[in-house]
């Protein structure tokens, strides 16, 4: 945990400095006694830097009983594939539209969560994607873009 705290503190300090630099470049207004738009961000920046520095100092101090949480017993590739599935899905979403993108995404997630039966994979991904799509469009009146299927979907 100490090593994590150190890494995080350095990273947070960098973010804090970046935030402070951006705050310094915020526009100023000349309206009587009212505080500037940068006033609150400055307060936040100072607090953030002080707390990050405190985390850094805590990380440098002799080790305490802060135990490192036990790593979950899951293959790292599973996380990787989950992340890849999400990123590809989000990238394809505006072009493919909700229905065409949801079906393969759902299928991929079902597979990652341990489903291996082909019929369940197909039935679940197509059935639930269709149900949610029409539920939101028909009942909740949220017009989800249909993308490449816009000619097919009413």
């Amino acid at each position: 945990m100490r090593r994590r705290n150190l890494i995080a503190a350095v990273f947070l300090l960098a973010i804090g400095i970046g935030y402070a630099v951006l705050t310094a470049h915020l526009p100023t207004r000349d309206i009587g006694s009212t505080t500037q738009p940068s006033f609150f961000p400055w307060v936040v920046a100072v607090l953030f830097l002080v707390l990050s520095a405190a985390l850094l100092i805590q990380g440098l101090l002799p080790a305490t009983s802060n135990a490192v949480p036990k790593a979950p017993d899951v293959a790292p590739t599973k996380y990787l594939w989950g992340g890849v599935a999400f990123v590809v899905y989000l990238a394809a979403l505006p072009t493919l539209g909700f229905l065409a993108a949801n079906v393969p995404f759902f299928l991929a997630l079902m597979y990652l969560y341990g489903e291996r039966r082909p019929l369940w994979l197909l039935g679940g991904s197509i059935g639930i994607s269709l149900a949610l799509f029409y539920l939101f469009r028909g009942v909740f009146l949220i017009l989800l873009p249909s993308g490449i299927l816009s000619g097919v979907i009413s």
Partner: protein
Amino acid sequence: MNPDIVDGFAQASMMSSLIATGIGSLLGLVVGMIPGMTISTGIIIVLPLTFVLEPTISIALLLGLYVSGMTGGSFSAILLNIPGTPSASATGLDGHPLAQRGEAGRALGLAITASFIGGMVSFAGLFFIAPLLAEIALRFQSPDLFSLVFFGLTIICSFAAKSVIKGLLSAVIGLMIVTIGQDPMMGSQRFTFGQVNLIAGIHFLTALIGLFAIPQLVDNFVELIGDKETRYEAARIKRVLPRWADLKRIRLPVAIGAPVGAFLGILPGAGGPIAAFISYDYTKRVSKNRDEFGKGAPEGIAAPESANNAVTGGALVPMMTLGIPGDPVTAILIGALLIHGLAPGPLLFVENGGFAFGVIFSFMYANFFNIVIGFLGLRLLVKVLATPNALLMPTIALLCVIGSYALRNNFFDVYVMFGFGLLGLAMRWLDMPVVPLLLALVLGRPLEEHLRVSLAASQGDPTIFFTSPFSVVFLGLAALSIFWSFYAEHRSRRLSDGATRQ
């Protein structure tokens, strides 16, 4: 009689409101029951569906989910020894041993009954205390409100984290995010980088979905694998309605749990788990049957269950009267009200008194639905425990994406949601709590507004925060809560270091 009370009762008693409360209760029992799903996540997923509904109906649905979610959490604690919600952890201590003795129905019936009594006691507290507190809060000026919001933020940071520094850092990250978009006083753009989508700021709900739901999806890669047999066993339940002898046995634990829960619910940050364990512990000390605790004592189920359900009404008190959330769920409810153009706080009782009392009466109905649906649908509901993760989790993922998009019909919000999901995972890796960040997202804007209005009124003189007794008390309490948290953290480290050396 106060016409707002009559109006509120009428609003909550409308057929549409009652149906919404009932659906919310049903969803709450299901969501609470599923280990790995929190009430917060359930509400976040349902919230986008309520955008098209009237505020009264929308809040009725969410309250149903909140109240019944607490009870649902005890179902899996009793049947599987896996608490569906953190608040149900204490219930499993005696509920599961009772279920193992073949009396699962008895344990569940006691949990539902105690939940109802706890909920109704907290309804009484909410009904009588909230309007009075709102009346007092109407006297607050900007400096008082700043100090109050600041106190609300600090006490939750202190409670939520094992490390005070990490809790405060989490809150400050939330405040940083709040500064994105238009300045609330002058309308100047801050940190928008020319991006039109950022002018209105980061939507509270987008951040919420990412912070809560994405880490939960990742968690469920791990949880519950290989639990199918245990889940299937859970479906065998006999008599559910409690016997008279059991009802007599739970009088004392409920009399302890309900007021303790209602009181702790009012205190921001304390929450259901603390109330449940305190009630359990105190009941064990005063009970004649203390030797049975841990082996399936009915008192050990009733005390924590009445307490955690009583917390719900208590938590609504600061939320409705001061605009200060008592726990993550009430923070989300504040967001839900804001989406409908209603700002919780003392003015809610003045400007929308009927609505405010409507919320209170919907809370009462939610408790009725909780006990009715709980008893009538229990055998069917527990079958949800057999739903495979492979169907549930992808459905949640799709609901998160659609929910983020539906906020402003914008793909940008979907990407922001995903970004917050990564932030939530990073914070978990660092053992940093997300609850302070969430509360900072809710309270950040009023904090800045009251700070700057106060300073503008005093020509920049910061002593204005020490001129009002209210403000001084709130600032004093904030300082005390931070100081106490540092002290408690230091003490617990010394204790555990000592234990390690031995």
